[in-house]
């Protein structure tokens, strides 16, 4: 608390936050309430502090005590729940990497944060997946049937082996012509002449970064299902041992990882981390690179990039 020129107490942001969390002392509380009822400026500050507090909760910035008090004493009105919902939406929309206090995140909360499969978008997506699976099954069945037919034809058609004995002239009437052998081989399976399409490899060079940066490199996603995004992770030092690279989303969800990668040196030590393009979507990503140092995992560096 700070005293202003008119000898009235100017409440600090910390005092306002303590009021919202129900932590004012018995002597502070009545004076604060009285001022809140008579001063519009304090009213306005408390309203903004509510938003700030909801944001800090959504971003996992509260300490353990504040976190508990927030749930027990703050989030008790519909208005505040709406504020928290907007804070969470802002975090989802803008935060590059906001690991909400892992120790506090319960298993139930993690389950809740999973995608909601009752959304119409998910229903359509499942419909499409089932349709593709059905089509795939039909295609495999048709292909198998034709192969089976070929196999049957190959196994049970009469063999055209040469006759071991030469037919004696006496056994045959002289004027009779020798039966002509119809050399009509069974049709060969049609060979697929179309050349296999080469996957596109998009290469992006990344340097270690301490935190997500708005200037993080961007990648234009290739569209092919076989395409690869090669992330060239620059190393400060090429140390012996194998590396592990893990690709994570902005909210620290693991997407893909590769073990036992070896570094190579072309003037600059680096790791090539190949990620199948279909695993990537538009958004921000981070890579955690660790090294296997005689059985112990050692964090080497983090890298950040954005997919457009």
């Amino acid at each position, binding site marked *: 608390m700070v005293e202003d020129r008119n000898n009235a107490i100017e409440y600090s942001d910390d005092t306002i936050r303590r*009021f*919202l*969390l*129900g932590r*004012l002392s018995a002597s502070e*509380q009545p004076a604060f*309430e*009285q001022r*809140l*009822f*008579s001063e519009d400026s304090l*009213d306005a500050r*408390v*309203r*903004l502090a*509510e*938003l*700030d507090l909801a*944001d800090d909760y959504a*971003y*996992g*910035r509260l300490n353990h005590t504040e976190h508990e008090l927030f749930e*027990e*004493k*703050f989030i*008790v*009105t*519909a*208005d*505040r*729940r*709406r*504020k928290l*919902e*907007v804070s969470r*939406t*802002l*975090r*989802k*929309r*803008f*935060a*590059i*990497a*906001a*690991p909400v206090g892992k120790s506090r995140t319960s298993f139930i909360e993690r389950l*809740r944060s999973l*995608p*909601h499969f*009752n*959304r119409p978008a998910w229903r359509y997506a499942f419909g499409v997946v089932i349709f593709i699976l059905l089509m795939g099954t039909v295609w495999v069945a048709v292909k198998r049937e034709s192969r089976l037919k070929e196999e049957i034809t190959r196994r049970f058609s009469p063999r055209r082996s040469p006759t071991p004995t030469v037919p004696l002239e006496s056994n045959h009437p002289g004027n009779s012509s020798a039966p002509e052998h119809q050399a009509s081989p069974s049709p060969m399976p049609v060979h697929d002449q179309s050349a296999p399409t080469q996957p596109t490899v998009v290469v992006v060079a990344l340097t270690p970064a301490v*935190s*997500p940066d*708005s200037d993080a490199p961007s990648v234009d996603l290739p569209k092919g299902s076989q395409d690869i995004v090669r992330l060239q992770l620059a190393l400060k030092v090429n140390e012996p041992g194998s590396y592990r690279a893990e690709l994570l989303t902005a909210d620290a969800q693991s997407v893909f990882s590769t073990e036992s990668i070896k570094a190579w040196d072309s003037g600059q030590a680096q790791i090539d981390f190949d990620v199948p393009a279909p695993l990537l979507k538009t958004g921000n990503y981070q890579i955690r690179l660790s090294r296997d140092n005689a059985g112990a995992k050692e964090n080497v560096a983090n890298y950040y990039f954005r997919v457009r």
Partner: protein
Amino acid sequence: MSPAKTLRILKQEEFDLLLKWLAPDPGLAGLIYEKIRWRLVAILASRGCTCPEELADETIDRVARRVIEIQDSYVGEKAIYFLGVMNNVHHEYLKRPVLPRLPEPDDDGEAKERTHLCLEKCLDKLAPNSRRMIEQYYAADKRAKIDLRKRIAAELGIGISTLRLRALRIRDKLQTCIEQCLMLEARL
């Protein structure tokens, strides 16, 4: 709170009289009413009440019923009168048996989706500078918050506390805009 008092429903005339007592202009009276209610809720929540909205409404109902008796004689800040009545309501609340807190409604995926869509709409309504500030301000994660805010404040040539205030005012506008958008969506 006695059951008789709890069950008594506020009459429309009593409520109209309350608004008239707060301000002759109905629009202004409505604003004062909302402000008083918000302050009551904030104080009751700070005192640890599990149902501050219910107690704030009970306080307002009691004041409304008394307006007819006090309107000619009461002198002073009218809002402060509510504070006195609220203390009585709170005192009675403390004597009630402690009820378990109602579980919060389950996360509704569709509601989240709607909030997200409304956020996009409301962001589009912001001035480019405000939008940029919000994008930067809310991009910071747990560790980078202070560094990033220092950088934004330096870029704008303002102090961190001014930046916080500006960002929160825009955030407040967004909140109002999103709530209005959600109400409109619900009506459709």
